C-alpha cells in the first residue's frame, strides 16, 4: 500500500501525497509547478484551454481522430499511450502511474515541433490563450495518425474553443504538421515505464482531510472535510471499501465529478478509482452483444462501435470532445443518471442490461429498471457497475438515433431519441422508442409504440404517432430549451424518423 501517487510530468517523476494529490492537475501545474502554459478558463471541460496529454501503459488504444487507424507499435516493453484530456477536471490522485506532457514539454531545447511551427506560420494563434490547448490536442492527434484529413482535424480539435481565429488558420496548421514526432520520440517510454512498473501493483491509499487541518490546499481550494482516496488493485477490495464507505464516489473519468467539485463545491466523503483493477477496462464484442467493462472509456466504447453500430457513430462523434471521451466512461454516463445522457436512449431501445457486483455477488438489471426517479438508481451502496451488456441490433432491425443540441458538437443535448424497429411488407412489426430530455429520466413511449405496431409505414401514421408521443412526455423549460421546443421535437422527430427510413 502506498500513500502517494507517482506522476511523471514532462519526463520528471513526482511523488505526490495528500493533501496535494487532491488538487486538479491544471492548478497543480499552474500554481505549484508554475508551468503556466496550461491555461484555466472554464474549469468544466468545455473549452480545452487546459488540454494536456496523459500517457498510460495500456493494452489497447483507441484513436478518435484517426481515419487511418492505429499505427502498429513494436512489441517488447510496454509503451505509453498518450491521449489528450482536460487537466481542469482531472485530479492528481487519478493520475497514478501516468506521464503528463504539457505545452512546456514539447519544444525541447528550444526547437519548435512541427505543430508549433505550423501554428506560427499559419497565424493559428491570435491572442494565444487557447493556443497551448490546441497545440496539445494536435500533438494528441498526431499520436494516432500521420496524415490527418480535415475531418480528422475537426474531430481532434472539437474540444478546443478559440474566440479569435475562426479556426480556419488552425485547421491549416494542423494539416501541415505531418512530420510531428510521436511523444515516444521526445520521451522514450522505457525509463518512465520502468519507474511505473515498480509501483504499479501497489494499491494507493490517501488520507482525507480533517476539518481541523488548514482549510486550504496549495492551490487554494477549500477541502475541509474531504474524504480519503483509495485505488485498490482487485475487485474484492473495491467492493469492501465501497460497503464500508456507502457514500463513496467512483472517480473514474471525473468528467462529471470534476464539474461538481469545481462548480458546485462538492466535497466527497470517500473516493475510489477502479484503474488498478484488471479486466474492467475492456470492450468486447461477443455473441451479438457488446460487453463494456465498468471503467471502459467512452473513447474505447466509440472505437468499438465504429464497425458494428454505424448509427451510433455520429452520436458518439458529437458526444463531448476527445478530451472528455478519453477520460469519461460509459459506466459513469449511466451512473450519473442524467436524463439527457447521450448513450441512454440507445441503451434503452437495445434492452441493455447492467452487471452489478456487490458483497453478495453479481446481479443483472435491465437498464429500463435501473432508474427509479430523478438521479435515483437501483444500486446498493456496496455495488459497482462492473459490466454493461448491450445486445446489438440484428440485421432486420432498423436503428435511428437523434441528438438535438443548440450547437452541433460539444454540447449537452436539449433532446434525444432512439428508435429500434422491425418491419416487414411496409409495416411496423415492432418498435421501441426512447426519449431523453422530456422527463426526469429517459422514457420509453409505450403508447406510441403500441400505436405504431402493425401500422403501415406512412407519413400520416408517423405524424399521428408524433401527436401521441407529445402526450406521453412532460418536459420542462430550462437553459437548453423551452418546454414548447421540446414538445415540438418530441412530436416532430417521429416524422424525421419516417423520412430517414422510408
Amino acid at each position, binding site marked *: 500500500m502506498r500513500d502517494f501517487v507517482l506522476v511523471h510530468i514532462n519526463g520528471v517523476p513526482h511523488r505526490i501525497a495528500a493533501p496535494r494529490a487532491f488538487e486538479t492537475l491544471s492548478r497543480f501545474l499552474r500554481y505549484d509547478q508554475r508551468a503556466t502554459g496550461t491555461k484555466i478558463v472554464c474549469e468544466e471541460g468545455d473549452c480545452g484551454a487546459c488540454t494536456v496529454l496523459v500517457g498510460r501503459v495500456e493494452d489497447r488504444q483507441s484513436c478518435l481522430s484517426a481515419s487511418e487507424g492505429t499505427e502498429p507499435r513494436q512489441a517488447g516493453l510496454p509503451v505509453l499511450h498518450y491521449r489528450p484530456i482536460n487537466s481542469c477536471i482531472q485530479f492528481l490522485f487519478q493520475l497514478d502511474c501516468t506521464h503528463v506532457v504539457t505545452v512546456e514539454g514539447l*519544444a525541447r531545447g528550444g526547437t*519548435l515541433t512541427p505543430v508549433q511551427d505550423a501554428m506560427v506560420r499559419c497565424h*493559428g494563434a491570435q491572442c494565444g490563450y487557447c493556443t497551448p490547448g490546441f497545440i496539445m490536442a494536435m500533438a494528441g492527434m498526431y499520436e494516432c495518425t500521420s496524415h490527418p484529413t480535415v475531418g480528422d482535424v475537426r474531430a481532434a480539435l472539437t474540444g478546443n474553443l478559440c*474566440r479569435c*481565429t475562426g479556426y480556419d*488558420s488552425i*485547421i491549416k496548421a494542423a494539416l501541415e504538421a505531418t512530420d510531428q514526432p510521436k511523444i515516444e520520440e521526445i520521451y522514450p517510454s522505457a525509463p518512465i515505464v520502468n519507474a511505473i512498473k515498480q509501483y504499479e501493483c501497489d494499491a494507493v491509499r490517501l488520507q482525507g482531510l480533517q476539518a481541523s487541518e488548514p482549510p486550504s490546499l496549495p492551490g487554494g481550494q477549500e477541502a475541509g472535510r474531504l474524504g480519503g482516496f483509495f485505488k485498490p488493485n482487485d475487485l474484492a477490495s473495491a467492493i469492501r471499501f465501497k460497503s464500508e464507505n456507502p457514500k463513496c464516489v467512483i472517480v473514474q473519468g471525473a468528467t462529471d465529478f470534476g464539474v461538481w467539485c469545481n462548480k458546485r463545491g462538492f466535497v466527497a466523503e470517500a473516493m475510489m478509482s477502479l484503474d488498478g483493477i484488471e479486466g474492467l477496462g475492456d470492450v468486447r464484442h461477443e455473441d451479438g452483444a457488446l460487453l463494456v467493462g465498468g471503467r471502459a472509456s467512452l473513447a474505447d466504447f466509440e472505437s468499438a462501435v465504429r464497425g458494428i453500430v454505424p448509427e451510433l457513430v455520429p452520436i458518439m462523434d458529437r458526444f463531448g470532445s476527445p478530451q472528455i471521451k478519453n477520460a469519461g466512461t460509459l459506466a459513469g454516463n449511466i451512473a450519473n443518471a442524467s436524463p439527457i445522457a447521450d448513450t441512454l436512449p440507445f441503451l434503452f431501445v437495445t434492452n441493455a442490461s447492467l452487471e452489478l457486483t456487490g458483497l453478495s455477488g453479481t446481479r443483472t438489471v435491465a437498464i429500463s429498471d435501473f432508474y427509479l426517479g430523478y438521479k435515483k438508481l437501483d444500486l446498493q451502496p456496496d455495488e459497482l457497475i462492473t459490466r454493461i451488456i448491450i445486445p446489438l441490433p440484428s440485421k432486420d432491425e432498423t436503428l435511428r438515433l437523434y441528438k438535438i443540441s*443548440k450547437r452541433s458538437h460539444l454540447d449537452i443535448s436539449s433532446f434525444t431519441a432512439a428508435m429500434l424497429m422491425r418491419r416487414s411488407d411496409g409495416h411496423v412489426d415492432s418498435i421501441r422508442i426512447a426519449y431523453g430530455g422530456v422527463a426526469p429520466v429517459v422514457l420509453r413511449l409505450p403508447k406510441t409504440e403500441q400505436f405504431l405496431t402493425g401500422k403501415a409505414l406512412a407519413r400520416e401514421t408517423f405524424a399521428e404517432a408524433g401527436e401521441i408521443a407529445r402526450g406521453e412526455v412532460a418536459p420542462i423549460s430550462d437553459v437548453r430549451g423551452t418546454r414548447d421546443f421540446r414538445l415540438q421535437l418530441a412530436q416532430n422527430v417521429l416524422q424525421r424518423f419516417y423520412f430517414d427510413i422510408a
Partner: protein
Amino acid sequence: MSAVGKDVPHDSARGHVTGESIYVDDVPPLFGELVVDFVWSPYSKARIVSLDLSEARKLAYVYTHEDLHHNRLGPIVADEPLLVDDGLCTFRGQPIVVVAAETRAAVDAAKRAVRIEFEELKPILTIDDAIAAQSFIGETRYIRRGDAEAAIASAEHVIEGVFFNQGQDHFYLESQAAIVQPGENGAMHVLSSTQHPTEVQEVIAHLLGLQMNQVVVTTKRMGGAFGGKEAQATHPATMAALVSQKTKRPTRIVYDKDTDMHVTGKRHAFQNRYRVGFTRSGEIVGMKVEFFSDGGAYADLSPAVMARAMTHAENSYYIANMDIRGTVCRTNTPPNTAFRGFGGPQGVATMENVVEEIAAFLKKDALDVRRVNCYGVETRNTTPYGEVVPNNTLPRLLTELPERCDYRARVDAVRAFNASSQTQLKGIALSTVKFGISFNTKFLNQANALVNIYLDGSVQVSTGATEMGQGVNTKIAQLVADELHIPYERVTVMITSTEKNNNTSASAASSAADLNGSAAADGARRIRERLDELESRIGKQETWEKLVKAAYHERVSLGERGFYATPRLDWDWTSGQGTPFLYYTMGTACSEVLIDRFTGDLKVLRSDVLMDIGKPINPGIDRGQLVGAFIQGMGWVTTEDLRYDEKGVLLSHSPTTYKIPNINDLPEVFNMDWIDVENPINVGGSKAVGEPPLLMAISIWCAVKNALQFVANGDIARLKLPATNEEILMRLTEYAKRGAAVA
C-alpha cells in the same frame, strides 16, 4: 525590402505556441500578495436593509464604498458607483463589498461571512418594460434628412415591423484580471488586462484620491477582449488598487469565467421599430427607424454604441428621406458595453432585414433590391448625416461577388431544392456592409508613440495600442521598420504603459493600428529625416548600425515622440450631421444555409466574403481578423443564446450553456477574399479590419430568413436574432399551423 504588405508572423506567436507568453494570472505571486474578490448583488434590483461585516473582518480585509475617495466612474458620464453606496443595488453582479486575504479559501470564507439583508425590488429587465416605465439613459437622439413621414405616406408600398436582436457575451478566454503593486508615496503600479490603460489609470487615480502621475498602468497582452475590456477592465483593477492602497501590499484579482459572465456587460440587445416606403422596383423612398437599446443600469459606452447604430442605420443604401431615432433604455442588467462592431451590427442587421422584407414583399430577388438602393460612386453618395462616402467600392463588390460565387444559379437551385425536399429547407442571401472608421467622438482620434533607437541599431517602439491578439504590435513594427528603412526584426514593440504614452485612447473602433501606427510612423519618419540630413553632411553610411553610431557621435537625437490626429473629423449631435468617419471599410458576403424542417437544426453550407480592406499591412494577420470576426458574428446570429430567468439571472453563464462557434461549425465551403485597392487616406494604404467582417455574418441570418420565406404562406417571414434551432423550429411550426389553417 519593405516589411509592410508582408505576411510576418504575429510577434508573440512563438511564445503562444510554447506556452511562454505571460498573461496576468501567469505572473508568479509577489511577496505578500493578497487575493482580491468581491461580494455582488444577487438581485437585479434590491435595497440593502442591513450590512454586517463584523464576522468577515475577522477573516479578511474588507472594504466598502466608504473606503474610496470618490465612487463614480464611467467612460462617457461618471454615473456608475464602483461599490454600491446608496443602499440600492441596481443590477445583479454589482459589487458591494471588496474582500482580500492571503488565500482563495480565506477569501471565500470571508465572502460567506459577509451578512447582507436585502429587500428584493421589482426590476426592469426588458426593453418593453423600460419603455413602459420611461426608464432611459440620456435623451433620444436624431439623425434626419428630408421628410421621411411624407415620403412613406406617398410611397407605392409600405411595410413596417420590429427587429429584435439579443446581446452577446464577449467570451474572451482570459477573464478580467489585474495585479497591483503599491509603490512609494502612495504610487501604484498596475498590470491590467485592459484595452484602455489610460482609463484604468484615470479611474484608479480619481477613486483613490491620487494624481494620475502616481498611477502607472501597463498591459502586456490580453487573452482576448473584443470590447469587453475597454470600459469594464477598470472595475477589477480599481478594486485591487483599493486593497493595495489600504494594505500597502500587492494584490491580484482574477475573475473566474462564470463570475465574469454574470457581472460584466455584453453586446447591446436592440428592439427596433421600422416603417419603410418603397417603389415597385424596390427603391426605398423613405424610412423611419426607432432604435431602442438595452443599456443596462448605467451609461457605460451605451450612448456611443447607439450613435454608431444610428450612423449605420442605412448601411450601404442611399435613402433620400430618413428619420433615425435612438434611445438607450435603462434596465437592471449589468451595464452593456463595447463589443466588436459597437452598435454597427445592430444597425446594419436592422437594415438588411428591411431589404430582405422588401424583396419578399415584391417577390423580387433581394440582390436586385440591394443594387437598386446601393450608394453611388459620384451621385447618391451622401449619408443621412451628411458625410460623402469616399472611394465607394460597394457597386463593384456587389457585381463581383455574385459572379464569383455563382449567386443567380444558386438562388435557382435553392428554389428547386425547396420545392422538392420534404425534410429540409435551404436559404441564400447576399448582404453588404459599409462600416465607418474612426471613433464617433472626435477627440479620441489621436495617438502618440515613442520611438527609441539604441546604440546597436535595435529599435523599441511604445504606443498606447494594446495587444489582444489582433496583431497591432506586429503591424506597428512593420510600419516603423519601413520608415527607418531597416529589417523588421530590428524593431520591437514594448509593453503598453501609461508611463511611456500618456492620455491614450482605447484600442477600439478597429482603429488601434490606424492611429498608433500613424503616430509611430510619424516618430520614425522624423528620426529618419534627421539621419538623412546627417548622411547628407557626413556621407552615406555603409550600414544602419554604422549610421546609428555616427548619429550618436554627432549628437543627433535617436529618440522621437510621434503624434497623429485624424484629419477632418467633425460631428454635431444637435443637428445630427457631420463627418464622423475618415473612410469606410466595405464588404459583401453571400451565405447559404440548410435547415432541418423537423428539428430546426441549422447548417451553414457555404459563405463567400469579398471585402475592400485597402492594402493590408500584414495580409496574414488581416485574414485572421476577417475569418475570426466573421465566425464571431456567426455565433451572434446563430447559437449564442443569452438566457435569463424571470428574475434576470443569467442562465447561460459558462461555455457549457453558452455556445460560441466550435471548429465543426465552420461553413462547409468558406471563401474569404478582398479586392486590390489602395486606401489613399490611411497609413500604408490600408483599411481597418477589426470589426467590419463581423457584420458580414449577417448574411447567414438573412439566409435563414430567406429559407423561412419559402414556407411563410405568402406572409413576410419574421425571425429573431439569434436564429437558434429553437427559434427556427418555432417559426417553422407557426407557419405550418397557419398554413394548415388556411388550407
